[in-house]
């Protein structure tokens, strides 16, 4: 009994930081509609800044002062990021901002590494709260009790701010209808900035508060992001009490998970989320999202048409250059381009459902990594030959997509995105924690191609054929009735349903198709590398694909693979330098600001301006 209560207390204490970070994310999303991927980074910054301040400021007052200051400083950093990075891209297509926030993650990671160095920092203990108290014989750190006491105050303060003050009224109004708030004369820019300050300050506060428990390390940003998304979604987007409730549930669940089912701790949280969303599609205390709430900004998407002779010539030339690559370049380039082509197929598969179907998936790596693991497991345990494994990889990924798609497509918008994220994490934790079968962190190794394809050049041609074929198939699908039906479902579900189109089924098939193609890319990947590790299933991998699609241009047909080639190429070049994340992050931010329509979209615009491409008669 004592242990039971002690664990609940630990869970409640852990819930504090989680709640603060989650409520910040929820606020920012509610008002600005920006899914702030960088929120975990602000949490991490809070921990590091708090650490340094605690070194400088002595005593009890110094400790708590450091925590408050850390929150303020991170809030100010958030404001700088908002003004420099996000303001220029608010008018960009929906969700485009998340690419920018991804760039921010990379920049903050490297800056933190530069300033504080690579070693993990052990947080100082809170002065006066270093001991433990015994509750029914079980030790409970005093600091935990302090955290349990503090969190409700923060929550109530926040609740007061949101429900009882004028600023709070504006924030709530903006959450419901920001156009109307703008029309009533509220300066939206500063409202957005203010909310960003508050959200980031909360994240920083959370980071600093948990220092005595967890310290600071460079992996904090991603490790909390998953949990934060889960909390926000379970609680209901935009609901503060919901976020608190969910933070408590998840934290207690985690504590008990560690004790009673250590093999499943990572999975547990996501299983809970899936169950909650199956029963309550908008979270525990969330409200139904009003359709059309996310106003489409930017230019309307253009009609698609098959490429003209000039573009065809260009693509053919490119393909010929690629096909002849092994003749004029070395082994290194051949392997590199193989990787790039595989990544392009992966990105193109996501682009198909994102660009044509408007289905934003945060967990597409589930199918890439899933296909790779399927092939690797088949080779390891059933000695399956490569040829068969390359067929079964996409098939397994497709089967997984059928199941996952069925669950996820019950929700829409952000909730859909979060469900896909949950399934991605689910597969990742399965691969990570089910060590007996998947090798856990050590992965599966010695998965090589059949003898005939083991030469790099031969494998290059194999990958070339399958990747180019896959990308062309995806492109054909976009021009075929199926792609049109998918776009119809996105453009106007109402009209589509009223003209005989089963929109959910069309989306389900598209989800499965995209998953299958990602699985093919995964299969090719594993035979190219000879091994597979859980990080291919990570959320970061899903984000990579998402970033690439947005960078390439969502509203274009070639955005996926062009973005893929650009990103993977740039990454390969930049990773040779020490602070490559910083450079890549800045590069991403620059592309986002300079070309909010993505690479292909911007090139098309430029081409039209100088008269190289024909301007559509209706374009203004």
């Amino acid at each position: 009994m004592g242990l039971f209560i002690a664990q609940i207390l630990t869970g409640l204490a852990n819930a504090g930081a989680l709640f603060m970070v989650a409520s910040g994310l929820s606020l920012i999303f509610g008002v600005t509609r920006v899914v702030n991927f960088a929120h975990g980074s602000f949490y991490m910054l809070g921990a590091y800044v708090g650490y340094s301040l605690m070194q400088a400021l002595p005593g009890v007052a110094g400790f708590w002062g450091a925590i408050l200051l850390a929150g303020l400083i991170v809030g100010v950093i958030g404001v700088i990021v908002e003004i420099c990075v996000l303001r220029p891209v608010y008018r960009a297509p929906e969700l485009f901002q998340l690419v920018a926030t991804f760039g921010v993650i990379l920049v903050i990671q490297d800056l933190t590494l530069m300033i504080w160095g690579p070693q993990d920092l052990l947080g100082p203990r809170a002065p006066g709260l270093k001991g433990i108290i015994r509750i029914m014989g079980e030790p409970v750190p005093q600091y935990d009790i302090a955290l349990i006491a503090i969190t409700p105050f923060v929550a109530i303060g926040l609740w007061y701010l949101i429900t009882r003050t004028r600023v709070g009224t504006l924030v709530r109004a903006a959450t419901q209808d920001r156009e109307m708030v703008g029309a009533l004369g509220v300066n939206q820019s500063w409202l957005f900035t203010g909310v960003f300050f508050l959200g980031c300050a909360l994240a920083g506060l959370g980071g600093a508060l948990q220092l005595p428990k967890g310290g600071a390390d460079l992996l904090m940003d991603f490790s909390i992001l998953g949990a934060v998304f889960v909390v926000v979604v379970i609680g209901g987007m935009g609901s503060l009490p919901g976020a608190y409730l969910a933070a408590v549930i998840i934290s207690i669940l985690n504590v008990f998970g560690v004790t009673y089912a250590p093999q499943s701790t990572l999975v547990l949280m996501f299983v809970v989320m899936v169950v909650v969303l199956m029963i309550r599609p908008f979270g525990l205390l969330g409200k139904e999202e009003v359709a059309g709430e996310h106003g489409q900004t930017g230019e309307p998407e253009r009609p698609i048409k098959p490429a003209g002779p000039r573009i065809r010539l260009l693509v053919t030339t490119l393909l010929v250059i690629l096909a002849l690559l092994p003749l004029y370049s070395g082994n290194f380039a051949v392997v590199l381009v193989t990787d790039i082509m595989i990544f392009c197929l992966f990105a193109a598969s996501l682009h198909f459902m994102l660009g044509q179907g408007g289905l934003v998936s945060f967990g597409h790596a589930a199918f890439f990594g899933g296909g790779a693991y399927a092939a690797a497991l088949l080779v390891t345990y059933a000695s399956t030959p490569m040829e068969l494994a390359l067929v079964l990889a996409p098939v397994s990924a497709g089967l997984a997509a059928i199941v996952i798609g069925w669950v996820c497509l019950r929700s829409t918008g952000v909730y859909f995105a979060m469900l896909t994220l949950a399934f991605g994490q689910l597969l990742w934790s399965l691969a990570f924690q089910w060590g007996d079968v998947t090798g856990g962190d050590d992965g599966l190794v010695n998965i090589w191609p059949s003898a005939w394809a083991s030469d790099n050049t031969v494998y290059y041609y194999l990958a070339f054929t399958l990747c180019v074929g896959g990308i062309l198939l995806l492109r054909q699908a976009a021009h075929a009735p199926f792609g049109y039906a998918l776009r119809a479902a996105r453009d106007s579900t109402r009209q589509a349903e009223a003209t005989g189109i089963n929109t959910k089924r069309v989306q389900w098939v598209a989800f499965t198709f995209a998953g299958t193609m990602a699985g093919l890319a995964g299969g090719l990947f594993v035979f190219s590398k000879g091994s597979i590790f859980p990080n291919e299933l990570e959320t970061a991998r899903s984000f990579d694909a998402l970033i690439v699609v947005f960078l390439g241009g969502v509203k274009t047909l070639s955005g996926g693979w062009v973005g893929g080639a650009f990103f993977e190429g740039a990454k390969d070049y930049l990773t040779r330098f020490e602070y490559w994340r910083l450079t890549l992050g800045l590069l991403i931010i620059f592309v986002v600001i300079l070309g909010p329509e993505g690479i292909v979209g911007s090139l098309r615009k430029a081409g039209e301006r100088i008269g190289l491409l024909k301007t559509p008669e209706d374009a203004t």
Partner: protein
Amino acid sequence: MSPILSVRNLSRNFGAIKAVDDVSFDLAKGELLALIGPNGAGKSTCFNMLMGQLRPSSGTVQLMGKNIAGMQPRKIWRMGVGRTFQITATYVSMTVVENVQMALISHHRRLYSLTSFAHKLYRDKALALLETVGMADQADRHCAVLAYGDLKRLELAVALAHDPVLLLMDEPTAGMAPRERIALMQLTADILAQRGISVLFTEHDMDVVFAHSHRIMVLNRGQLIAEGTVDEIRNNRQVQEVYLGGGTLFKAAEDDAHA
């Protein structure tokens, strides 16, 4: 001749509110039937039940003898019912003609085809439909740049794509300029005369209603209070009171209740 559409005792409650209360009517082949009534009378609720967006609390809707109440919109469409929306719903990322082609592709059940090019399928048929509504010259324009009146005409072409026997039009002229309104309803009247389609439409513009409908039904507070030819409705005292509004409305209702 048996009616195309036969509605019996159709009702729908939202909590304690009876949005549509025991509505019954028939629609004959080739008939242009108007459903009018003040704001909040239950016209849209009624429409949404006919088209499957909303499940009736009770009552039946028979389309050529088959009960379609509670069916999904896409099933009802496949049985030969076309519809246009109060606020236009078109595919903004496609061209005008592709919008029509999409409906034709769906009608011919080729939605999942991967082998053909969608923009080549049924193009001639789609162009012919656009010709009917006078939009052929704009066939290859981007749908997103069309004027609102043109979108309405495009929607009509889409609704006609699968040769429907019945057309449901929810405020077909809402948001259009006066001259355009007359033109659109004239067009609709001509098309149904040619093809023998029945039309049920709701409308706020009385000029449009009186100029084109064969028969008019008046809905107030969920109940049908009058039904008849243009002249009968025009001279119906109760209808006048409903439309002229004010305190007389409540008195009329009270009188009704006592009568």
